[in-house]
């Protein structure tokens, strides 16, 4: 079953279209990256999923059910614009937020205690949020997002504003939550996190989804059949089968070349041909990074 399916979601404002026929499919128990430049519509779709705003048209279903108010308790949401009540004590604050999510007072109490212990901050219960450091407040904020054990966790730019230590902590928590069965959607600009964490991604640009799929699929789609070869001595590859894209000097008098295969041949063919013309020291398929794909696609769009 899919954790979330969106079909033709559209949201228009007076002067612009925030989302234009966006389809998304988020597999269950996966980490799903929602990518896109600023203003592309990521936050809009996230707000629609959280029922903060309504879509003009289109349909969203969560775990096979049409989106409805009961889903509030199923979703844990960490908005990009986040904060806590400054004057409230940590314990009261978490209790209030948990109850708003639909937990009973007793359930909320016991879960908050577990989480505070987990983050080794049990003694914060009576501290006011305004007395906490920023890093401490971030932990409280994260607890508030996940304490009701949501099956679907939506994190909007989770690492922006979090210090590296907390970012690491949260990364670990995200992985653990996934292991326990949760599905995590997060939007981010940080491509290295996408590379590390995401199983699938969607790329939204200018209100439209322009790419979606598992990380492997996406990379396979955008790989250019290029290979990085380290070798000693120059070579010339004949025929239209290959083209030499780039060549540069590497250490120890080696050369580093990027060779593109124009046909359908296998890497073995290239290796076979290469060892006849040069001394091969290393051979690596050049797989595009998410960042490269992202930039290429977004730039390509804006050039149209």
């Amino acid at each position, binding site marked *: 079953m899919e954790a979330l399916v969106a079909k033709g979601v559209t949201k228009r404002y007076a002067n612009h279209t925030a989302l234009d026929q966006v389809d998304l499919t988020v597999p269950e128990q996966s980490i799903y990256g929602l990518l896109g430049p600023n203003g592309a519509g990521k936050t809009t779709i996230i707000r629609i999923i959280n029922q903060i705003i309504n879509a003009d048209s289109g349909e969203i279903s969560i775990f096979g059910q049409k989106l409805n108010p009961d889903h509030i308790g199923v979703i844990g949401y960490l908005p990009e614009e986040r904060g806590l009540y400054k004057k409230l004590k940590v314990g009261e604050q978490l209790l209030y*937020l948990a109850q708003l999510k639909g937990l009973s007072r007793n359930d909320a109490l016991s879960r908050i205690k577990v989480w505070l212990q987990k983050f080794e901050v049990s003694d914060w219960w009576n501290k006011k949020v305004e007395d906490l450091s920023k890093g401490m407040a971030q932990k409280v904020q994260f607890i508030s997002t996940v304490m009701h054990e949501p099956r679907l966790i939506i994190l909007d730019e989770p690492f922006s504003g979090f210090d590296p230590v907390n970012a690491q902590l949260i990364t670990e928590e995200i992985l653990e939550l996934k292991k326990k069965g949760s599905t995590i959607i997060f939007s981010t600009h940080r491509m290295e996190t996408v590379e590390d964490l995401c199983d699938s991604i969607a790329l939204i640009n200018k209100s439209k989804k322009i790419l979606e799929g598992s990380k492997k699929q996406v990379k396979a789609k955008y790989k250019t059949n290029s290979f990085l070869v380290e070798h000693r001595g120059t070579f010339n590859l004949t025929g239209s089968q290959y083209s030499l894209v780039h060549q540069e000097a590497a250490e120890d008098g080696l050369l580093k070349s990027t060779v593109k295969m124009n046909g359908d041949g296998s890497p073995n063919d290239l290796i076979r041909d290469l060892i006849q013309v040069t001394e091969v020291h290393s051979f690596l398929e050049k797989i595009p990074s998410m960042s490269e794909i992202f930039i290429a696609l977004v730039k390509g769009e804006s050039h149209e």
Partner: protein
Amino acid sequence: MNKIWLIIQREFLNRVQKKSFLIATIVVPLIFPAIIGLLVFVSKQSEKNARKEVIHFVDESKTFLPDTSRFVFKPFVGSLDDAKRAFNDSEDFGLLYIPTYELSKPKGITLYTKINPSLDDVGNIEHLFEAQIKDMKMRRLNIDQKLLDSLKTNVNISTVKVSEGGQEKSSNSGILFGIGMAGGILMYMFIFIYGAQIMQGIIEEKTSKVVEVIVSSVRPFQLMMGKIIGLASVGLLQFLIWIILMSTLTFGVLGYFGIDPPQQQAMQQMAPEVAAQQAAVNSNVISGINEALNLPWAFILFNFLFYFLGGYLIYGALFAAVGSAVDSPAEAQQFMFPITIPLLISYMSLFMFILKDPHGTVSVWLSIIPFTSPIAMMGRIGFEVPLWQLVLSMVLLIAGFIFTTWVAGRIYRVGILMSGTKVNYKVLAKWFMQRG
């Protein structure tokens, strides 16, 4: 609905647990009775000490003159001339010469004073004689004291003025004026103070960025209403505490100084002359209190609560809309103008029209239009407002707050998620028109 209840609770507790709430709730009701107490105390003190005047009397007729709270009567033994001489040397108020007189035609009673006595003083002494002589006559007719006492009846005539328009107006309009003014001012203060608190709370939620976390759990409208209702309950609680504390303290203070509430006073049939004297002395205070207590307090209180809630909800929603649109209280100033204007108009009209002429055209319409009615109606409430006006005003008030809440809700749901935008009325209109 469970969630709206949670929000109401949270808002309520947040405010009630603040020190400022505790201070305002306790200090304000102390000030009011303290002032009354002080006034009563001062007047009582001056009665007791300074004003108790000594009158010497030379009595040739054996008339019994009881002391009053104003005068102490001291018999002088000797001739009138001796008495005059002694009186001239003393600092006392007066010398009363009572020759033997016929009960039917008392003549020759003379009061010697160094300064011209007031008409009141002379009248009071005359009343004393009249009462004494009446009693003596009765006794002569073999009517005993019991019968005498039972003949005395206390009648309180309530004075009602009929104006040219045929409208009746209780003549003690001072009290009604006071109630109208206090009610109007209190309403004005409540709406402003609590309205501003709603606005502040919303701006706080917006600037601390907690609002998006909250609206992912509840509808924006629920959050807004929860806040408005939560604060309303704080306001009501504060108001009720004030009423209870103030009335307890007021009666406590009055009781301490020996001014009984009129219900007890009515039961005191003893010593009518004394009572009459006391009544004459305390007449201002007591008739005032009497008048105040005879007002339909339950009716006034009910109306105050109704108009407080109605006015608060009408303006509270508008304050909420403004709070949602801006990022700081300073920015809110530009939108405060249209909210403040009707409040100011009704506040100023309270003094210019409503209290002076509670049934004038301007007063009537101001008390019917929803935006001005909470304050205007408070000003009129003591003056027998016709039922149709009251009902129309209440219905319009309810319609008014449903309307403003609807408008505010539409602006609020968009506004709270927009930070860092330059907002003007055009933008507000756009938000209002925007679909969910």
